[in-house]
């Protein structure tokens, strides 16, 4: 009986406990039924914000090698706080006045000021996800990561004493601590506000991003992954409703693709991993518009030995700074950036990309983390090198690991308007010894520039010459650049390269497209000569394709001339089928030729039946001409041209046009008529012979060709 009573009491307690956990503040944290938002959030935030916020001491913590050790360095006092031997295998975290690191199979907690070990916990198959502190409360999160069978552990320390230790079967993210409240991301969509006893005070939920990591900057709590939210009273409204949120929205891929905030479900990379040498640096700030933004409107990228200060979308460089050794830790501060190098050099870089100060740590860090919100950056008098020069140096750095960043530097040159930038891009694009990726990027960037450039023009003036050791310049990107800029000055140079046998075949289409796009009608003659000369010489598909592009260019430049060039081509049996077909297709696109003024068709169309063919005068100047010209031929045949066209239309082969070769005697008599296709000869012969050609001054025979279209 007593046993039954005891059982009932236990069940009641269990039930009440469950109910309490399901909906009441002060319950076990991270339960599925805890309500989101509401007044609790405001109350918890008010409690957190009530505590005064002063900038924490500026420190660098990290792992050094030879021997492997943990260290902490006071940036303000410029002195080493401690260096203790430790088999650390992850980047340590700064949690208020504590340093938290994963070492062998445990997590250690040391005092920041002297490195004394105050706590240690077994990792138990988990990773150190993150830790933070405000001087009174520290929060440490361990987790297995992943998405299945996840285990996590939240450790809360008041001072150096553990005040709460919560193990949960869900994923926890990196915490932040402000005003005695721990902000713990969990389940990728929640952030729970937890007090020092481990009681969940409030919870927020987000829908637009992932709650992976939380951090404090300027007394405000932020969290996110692809972007970051500010955790304030507006958060409940969502992004559309006015929540403060900034998203990393890159318009270009950054080298190494470092994350803005690391994914807490992914195990941290080993400390030796190169991933620790490729990182983004940023700090949140409120813009004047009231929108959340980046401090100094700048996103920093560290890539081994190169530091880029970029516009938030990554497309515009503010400066580039190159270090002597690999950067193993970066941290954005107001007006600049702090960088820790593997050589032990710590450098503060100002907003112009100049080294404001540097300090020697006296050890060789493998990875480092910096905590600093404000650092006094000494004013520099020296003018920084022009941005073009900075980018040029970055693009030419011989370190093979830097190839992606070098290509990125070349890409950034595209946004620099100066002609020097074009010059550098041309040199990079043409540099035989540069890595393919850098060259390719430089060429692509050059192609996309829209600025009129003397450098492009000067490069186009270069001709290949073996004796002078010159190769053809990178013509495709140069031609595209000239086209993008609409620089008609380039047309003659492009045509000169079209006629230059040293021009690589693969560059010809780009040249022709640029010539066509620039629209200088005087270019038509050269293009026409090219099409005519090579149309029957095309031995491969590449030249065939080039000829097709040339035909398009010709039509764009001078449709009238194009018809005269393309008609014979379409019927030339010596040309490859592809060339003939292309010519015919282009002719079809051009449509039927407009009837010539004064012709029968034109007269009919104009409603002037009196304008008979006989009335068309033959152009003979005062006295016979010295020789026959095309104009004489046109004039003489204009009367019969409609009938000639009919002959072509009715020919059994249905040709688009026919080519006539006329042998005309000195008295204007027709000696011979040849036609291609031959089937039209019978029809055209009497028509041609009926035409009256002028006599020539010296009685010389003339052999002339004449095209008749349908």
């Amino acid at each position, binding site marked *: 009986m007593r046993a039954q009573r005891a059982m009932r009491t236990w069940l009641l307690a269990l039930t009440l406990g469950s109910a309490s956990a399901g909906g009441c503040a002060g319950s076990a944290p991270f339960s599925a039924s805890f309500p989101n938002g509401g007044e609790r959030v405001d109350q918890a935030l008010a409690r957190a914000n009530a505590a005064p916020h002063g900038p924490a001491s500026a420190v660098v913590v990290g792992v050094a090698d030879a021997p492997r050790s943990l260290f902490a360095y006071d940036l303000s006092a410029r002195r080493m706080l401690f260096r203790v031997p430790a088999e650390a295998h992850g980047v340590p975290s700064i949690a208020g006045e504590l340093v938290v690191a994963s070492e062998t199979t445990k997590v250690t907690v040391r005092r920041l000021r002297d490195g004394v070990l105050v706590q240690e916990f077994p990792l138990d198959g988990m990773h150190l996800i993150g830790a933070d502190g405000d001087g009174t409360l520290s929060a440490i999160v361990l987790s297995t990561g992943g998405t299945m069978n996840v285990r996590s552990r939240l450790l809360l320390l008041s001072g150096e004493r553990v005040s709460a230790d919560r193990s949960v079967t869900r994923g926890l993210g990196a915490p932040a601590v402000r005003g005695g409240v721990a902000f713990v991301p969990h389940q990728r969509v929640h952030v729970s506000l937890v007090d020092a006893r481990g009681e969940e005070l409030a919870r927020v939920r987000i829908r637009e991003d992932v709650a992976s990591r939380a951090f404090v900057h300027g007394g405000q709590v932020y969290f996110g992954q692809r972007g970051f939210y500010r955790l304030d009273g507006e958060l409940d409204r969502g992004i559309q409703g006015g929540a403060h949120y900034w998203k990393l929205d890159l318009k270009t891929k950054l080298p190494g693709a470092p994350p803005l905030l690391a994914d807490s479900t992914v195990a941290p990379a080993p400390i030796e991993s190169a991933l620790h040498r490729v990182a983004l640096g940023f700090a949140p700030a409120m813009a004047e518009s009231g929108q959340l933004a980046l401090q100094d409107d700048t996103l920093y990228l560290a890539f081994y030995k190169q530091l880029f200060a970029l516009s938030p979308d990554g497309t515009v460089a503010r400066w580039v700074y190159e270090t002597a050794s690999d950067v193993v830790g970066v941290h954005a501060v107001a007006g600049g950036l702090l960088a820790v190098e593997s050589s032990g050099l710590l450098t503060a870089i100002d907003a112009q990309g100049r080294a404001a100060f540097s300090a020697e740590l006296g050890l060789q860090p493998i990875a480092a983390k910096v905590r600093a919100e404000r650092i006094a950056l000494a004013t520099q008098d020296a003018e920084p090198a022009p941005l073009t020069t900075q980018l040029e140096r970055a693009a030419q750095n011989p370190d093979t690991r830097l190839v992606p960043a070098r290509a990125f530097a070349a890409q950034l040159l595209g946004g620099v308007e100066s002609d020097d930038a074009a010059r550098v891009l041309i040199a990079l694009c043409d540099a035989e010894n540069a890595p393919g990726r850098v060259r390719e990027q430089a060429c692509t960037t050059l192609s996309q520039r829209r600025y009129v450039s003397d450098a492009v023009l000067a490069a186009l003036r270069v001709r290949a010459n073996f004796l002078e050791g010159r190769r053809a310049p990178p013509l495709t990107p140069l031609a595209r650049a000239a086209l993008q800029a609409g620089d008609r000055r380039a047309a003659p140079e492009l045509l000169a390269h079209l006629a230059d046998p040293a021009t690589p*075949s693969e560059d010809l289409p780009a040249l022709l497209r640029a010539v066509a796009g620039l629209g200088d009608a005087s270019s038509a003659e050269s293009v026409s000569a090219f099409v*005519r000369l090579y149309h029957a*010489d095309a031995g491969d598909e590449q030249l065939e394709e080039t000829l097709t592009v040339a035909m398009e260019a010709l039509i764009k430049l001078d449709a009238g001339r194009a018809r005269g060039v393309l008609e*014979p081509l379409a*019927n030339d049996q010596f040309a490859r089928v592809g060339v003939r077909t292309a010519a015919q297709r282009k002719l079809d696109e051009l449509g039927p030729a407009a009837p010539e003024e004064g012709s029968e068709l034109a007269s009919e169309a104009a409603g002037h039946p009196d304008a008979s063919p006989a009335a068309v005068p033959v152009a003979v100047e005062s006295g016979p001409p010295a020789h026959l010209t095309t104009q004489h031929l046109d004039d003489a045949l204009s009367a019969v041209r409609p009938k000639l066209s009919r002959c072509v239309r009715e020919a059994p082969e249905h040709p688009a046009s026919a080519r006539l*070769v006329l042998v005309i005697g000195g008295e204007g008599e027709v000696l*011979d008529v040849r036609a291609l296709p031959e089937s039209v000869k019978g029809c055209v012969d009497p028509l041609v012979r009926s035409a009256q050609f002028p006599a020539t001054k010296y009685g010389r025979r003339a*052999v002339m060709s004449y095209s008749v279209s349908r």
Partner: protein
Amino acid sequence: MRAINFRVVLRLLARATLRVDAVPAAPSCLACHARCTTPRDRVTGLRHARIAVGGVALLALAAGTAHAAPTKASRAGGQASLEEVAVMLSSADEDEVRTALETAATLPAADVLPMLDERVRAGLPRVLLDVAIDSLMLLDDRGSAPLLSDLSRHRRPEVRVRAIEVMAHVKAPSAEQVLTDALGDQAPAVRKAAADALGELGSHSALPVLERALALGVDGAARALGRLAKPDDVSRLLAQIGKLPTATLSPMLAVLLSRRDVPEPDKLRAIATVSALGGEESQTALTELEAQLAPETPARVKKAIAAAVQKGKAE
């Protein structure tokens, strides 16, 4: 009597003459490119071919005049072929165009050059373009220079080579500039052709550019320099011995040693300098020089080179 079609006779005769492979007395390069190894051979072959074609054409004319009915074409005398050529050039038949191109070589250059120019610029397939260039060589007229100059910048190197050879052959006033430009061509064969052509053209003013070409190892430059150098230039050129590989200079030395206008002391000094270099390369060069000496080379030079070869062997 049956009327003879002059055009057909001429075409057949021309084809028969120009396409006979085994004509030892007149090795036409139009038909035997494989046997003509040097531009000089080709020019000689083409001259022979021209004579042959011209003769056959005259025979044809005679036959036509003697047996043909008096047609409009025959009334025009020799100019009739011009009309026929013009018509055939426009043909879609490869054989007809080839015949026209070949026949054009037998007609007055002033009449046919404009037609050939127009036909080439209107686009010819590869085989026919070769024939057209051959005809330009046979015509041997400076009026072809503008077309040849353009063809010296054709996209196919083999066309450029042939245009350069013809350009030098017709000795067009603009040839030197064209050939000098061609020395900078990216194709080695074109550079060699240009160097050879400058040597053939006798362009002394091209010496500086040929010297640069020599330093860069352009094939043919050494031989051209040997041909073009004036006695005043010889000392400067000989100063290259020891600076450039002897094998590179060897063709130049061979020509200089054979030339009568080069002072004998210079020749002896050249032999001594090469000999003093010593080594296998020097020995090979001297042996080759000895073998290449022209019969009219002065005895002292012959003796000096023989002595140098012996000395090299002894060492």
